[in-house]
């Protein structure tokens, strides 16, 4: 594996390898609970907590965990942190906990978290693992906030519950409904792709799809 600097470990997950927008991990929460900035933030923070906690624990205990049972152990660790987060949220912010519902528990099966354990935390020193977790977690929060703002702004005319367009704004109800989630993420990814395409040197327009040349050469 290529050696990486501390800075890379931290920044990688925030933008260049953003878990949601680039790697398409953790789509379930990114779509299900981003109908308002508030929910998105709560979900992001809860996931952040679980990710950092389990990365810390996994990288600390990596020598003690036998290879054969590592996945089960990771899941166990993650589930523990999720349960803790679930109960804490319910005690501290019960309204938000009610809005997020079952999706807090479903952080357990967020492939992003398990993926970081398997790919990074189980192989690196504690400090690096924590940096990586913080970066990825912040990237996740950013993506969720983007989605949340877009959907709340269009779907409710407000941000964090503060109305921006005045009372006669006609909300696009669809944006806080499930289809709006798909469309918002789709539009975000299209926009990102479009920006990247404009930055990148213009590629040759191809009449035939790629791979034709390979086929013929083969």
């Amino acid at each position: 594996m290529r050696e990486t600097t501390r800075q890379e470990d931290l920044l990688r997950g925030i933008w260049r390898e953003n878990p949601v927008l680039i790697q398409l991990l953790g789509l379930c929460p990114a779509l299900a609970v981003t109908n308002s900035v508030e929910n998105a933030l709560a979900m992001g923070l809860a996931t952040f907590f679980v990710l950092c906690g389990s990365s810390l624990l996994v990288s600390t205990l990596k020598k003690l965990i036998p290879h054969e049972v590592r996945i089960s152990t990771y899941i166990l660790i993650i589930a523990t942190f999720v349960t803790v987060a679930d109960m804490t949220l319910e005690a501290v912010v019960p309204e938000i906990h009610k809005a997020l519902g079952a999706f807090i528990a479903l952080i357990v099966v967020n492939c992003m978290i398990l993926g970081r354990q398997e790919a990074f935390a189980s192989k690196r020193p504690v400090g690096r693992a924590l940096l990586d977790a913080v970066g990825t977690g912040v990237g996740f929060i950013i993506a969720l906030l983007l989605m949340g703002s877009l959907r709340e702004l269009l779907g409710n005319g407000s941000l964090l519950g503060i109305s921006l367009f005045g009372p006669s704004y006609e909300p696009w109800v669809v944006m806080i409904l499930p289809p709006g989630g798909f469309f918002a993420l789709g539009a975000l990814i299209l926009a990102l792709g479009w920006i990247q395409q404009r930055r990148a040197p213009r590629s040759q327009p191809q009449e035939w799809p790629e791979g034709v040349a390979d086929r013929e050469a083969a």
Partner: protein
Amino acid sequence: MNGALSVRPEVPAWRLITTMALAGVLAGALIVIVHQSTQPTILRYKAEMLRRAVNQVLKQPERYETLYIYRGALIASVPEGVQSKGLDRLYVGYGADDQAVGFAIAAAEPGFQDIVRLIFGYDAMAGRLLGMKVLESKETPGLGDKIEKDAVFVSQFDGAATPLVGVKGGRGSDDPGEIDMITGATISSRAVIRIINNALERSVPLIAAREASR
């Protein structure tokens, strides 16, 4: 990775089991500790929410008590050896004169999108509703969720005669049993009326039996 795997020494089975067991115990312990510390807050909040809902639909009674539905009868306390957890319940509110002012009944049935969960107060003597509050719904924002947020719609249930009848909005009838449905959210409005009527159908005989036995 594959190279690393092949040189990895064989780990004895007992170590795997011990690790898992240890992890399980540690995880369980951690969860129990957090549970112990958060549980009181959570329970207090839940109780508070319930108290508010009941008080709201019963129009602020002096006090209320919980009745359990056990073997087709309403009882105030559960007999020995029976778990109270799984039992359906309703709440009876008392006025200043210690007279029962009404019953708060919770019910849930499918609405337009998914299950609608609500609670309503029922004055058994007058056969009228005292109030209604939607506890949980996923109805269309801006339209179906008016059953929860539209004050005019909600206020119609205060003092409505039972059984409820839904009529098209804007008719302006004085009949106390008629509920003006929300324009454009007829299905959600009808669901609320249906849920209350069905719940009454189930509960009224129980309440009547309880009154009779007094």
